[in-house]
């Protein structure tokens, strides 16, 4: 190997990198990172005898040592995992399939379908919570009657009120709401594949599914990676939907409690319960660490290994 000649001159300082990064880094650091980390910092403190005191990891010991806290935490973590699994298994495949179908250039009404399918995503949680509670309500009859129409009335149950079914039901509602996001991302990625490559595949006899799986999918794998990590991050931060439809206590019997709802309940307080900034920050720090691990795995192990193709 030729290592004979060191580059003789050094390249000029690349100020433009700093310029490109500066605005984002400044705004983001000032308004997001500093406030957030000063909050997370609170997890190392507690109020002892009316005095804010440094307590080291004591709050974490409480979170994991106290059976009540630990039970809430693990329950929320498990629920969250399940919530995430459903999104990965239902939301993302549906999003991919819809995008793949929509990306066919000869399909008519593409714009209409795309917009229609995306509409739920732009609704606020308040509407989503309201309408699904209305639809799924055993009282007002929309879902039961519709099931009745196809002879499946017996399948109906008050899902949102059942410990076993509530979380899955809400996860599916969330899937319904957010399918538009993977769909749009995949769609944008599919658009960047040059037409000729697709044509070559057609010549090679690859159409429909095989074309999708053998040509398009590998080319959009990085986007799928992004979507998975976004789903992960989104799900582990989720709280609004649960909050508006099941309340801060994430009923029934905490069966829909996610890390997000647990955090909000603890941090901001709820009803007679006072907000506990220290325990709240402790939970937030745990959430942060969980997500950080996930994102780091993605950034350092997966993203660098995913091949990207320039078009």
């Amino acid at each position, binding site marked *: 190997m030729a290592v004979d000649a060191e580059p003789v001159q050094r390249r000029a300082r690349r100020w433009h990198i700093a310029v490109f990064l500066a605005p984002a880094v400044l705004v983001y650091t000032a308004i997001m990172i500093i406030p957030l980390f000063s909050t997370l910092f609170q997890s190392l403190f507690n109020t002892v005898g009316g005095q804010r005191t440094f307590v080291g990891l004591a709050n974490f010991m409480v979170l994991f040592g106290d059976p009540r806290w630990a039970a809430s935490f693990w329950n929320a973590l498990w629920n969250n995992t399940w919530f995430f699994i459903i999104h990965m298994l239902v939301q993302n495949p549906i999003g991919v399939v819809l995008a793949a179908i929509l990306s066919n250039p000869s399909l008519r009404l593409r714009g209409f379908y795309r917009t229609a399918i995306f509409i739920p995503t732009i609704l606020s949680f308040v509407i989503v919570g309201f309408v699904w509670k209305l639809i799924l309500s055993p009282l007002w009859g929309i879902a039961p009657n519709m099931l009745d129409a196809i002879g499946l009335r017996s399948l109906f149950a008050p899902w949102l009120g059942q410990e076993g079914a509530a979380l899955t039901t809400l996860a599916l509602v969330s899937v319904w709401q957010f399918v538009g996001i993977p769909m749009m991302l995949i769609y944008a990625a599919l658009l960047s594949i040059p037409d000729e490559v697709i044509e*070559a595949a*057609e*010549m090679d*006899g690859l159409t429909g599914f095989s074309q999708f799986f053998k040509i398009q999918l590998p080319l959009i794998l990085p986007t799928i990676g992004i979507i998975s990590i976004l789903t992960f991050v989104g799900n582990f931060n989720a709280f609004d939907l649960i909050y508006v439809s099941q309340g801060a206590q994430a009923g029934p019997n905490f069966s829909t409690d996610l890390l997000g709802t647990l955090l909000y309940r603890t941090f901001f307080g709820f009803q007679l319960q006072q907000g506990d900034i220290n325990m709240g920050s402790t939970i937030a720090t745990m959430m942060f660490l969980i997500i950080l691990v996930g994102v780091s795995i993605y950034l350092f192990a997966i993203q660098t290994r995913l091949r990207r193709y320039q078009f």
Partner: protein
Amino acid sequence: MTALRLENVTKAFGGTQVLHGIDLTVEDGEFVIFVGPSGCGKSTLLRIIAGLEDASGGKVFIGDQLVNATPPAKRGIAMVFQTYALYPHLSVKDNMALGLKQAGTPAAEIEARVGKASSMLSLDQYLKRRPAELSGGQRQRVAIGRAIVREPTLFLFDEPLSNLDAALRVNTRLEIARLHRELSATMVYVTHDQVEAMTLADKIVVLNGGRIEQVGSPMELYNKPANMFVAGFIGSPQMNFLPADTSGQGGATTIGVRPEHLSISTEAGDWAGRLVHIEHLGADTNLYLETKASGLITARVFGEVHHAPGTELFASAEPRHLYRFDAEGRTIAAV
């Protein structure tokens, strides 16, 4: 049997008419080459045959089947794209093998065919690389390999050799000729290379502005061009066109003479001119004479000839190699 028949095929992109009623019949096993100026519609026609583009009008028959509505994959064709269109995520080997895998060809057979193609195209050492790690010529060879491993009955080649060096180009050209013979496949081929066109084609189709100017065997086009366009297009350097009156040819407005049919003398000849530029190609030499009456005249002589630019030279043509064209540019049959 006819391998391919086009009936009045037209194509418009938006408002621009790109093909104006193309009629063409290609017999089974024939090697047909499309030539024509850049942008005349060769690639478009190829894409319509492949089914990648829908014709705006007219019919396309492959075998005896009307295929206007048949998807590309079902047309039994292979195509080499002008832009290569390799699968960026697959290795060279997989780029070639994908179509076969899709067709359910046994692994051993795939291995064999890919091996044969890659050794023929000198790609053996690159089988594991991805397209991004290949040079332009290597990519082009992969694109050719991808088409030939599939051994279809109809091949469509869009300028498959344009990025290859002379030696490889000759080799690949001979391989394609061999392939054509051995598979008795029908081939439709677009090229800008005169040598390729002349040596490979059973039949050359000269396109111009979306219309067919002439169809014929290479020597037919060379010797009996239907019009000035074809006469000028086939042969390189281009035929010299001279106003007819300067040489007193009755009935014709323009006469044409190919550079290789001009002989050069320092003493006397039909046209006198000053040598303005001389190109040495090794095997032959091109001389550019500036004549008073007829403008620039190109002459091509075999071997190395040396004249200093500025010299007064004379060019003469054998009468039997003169072409006569009427005012519309149509060839006037030899007198």
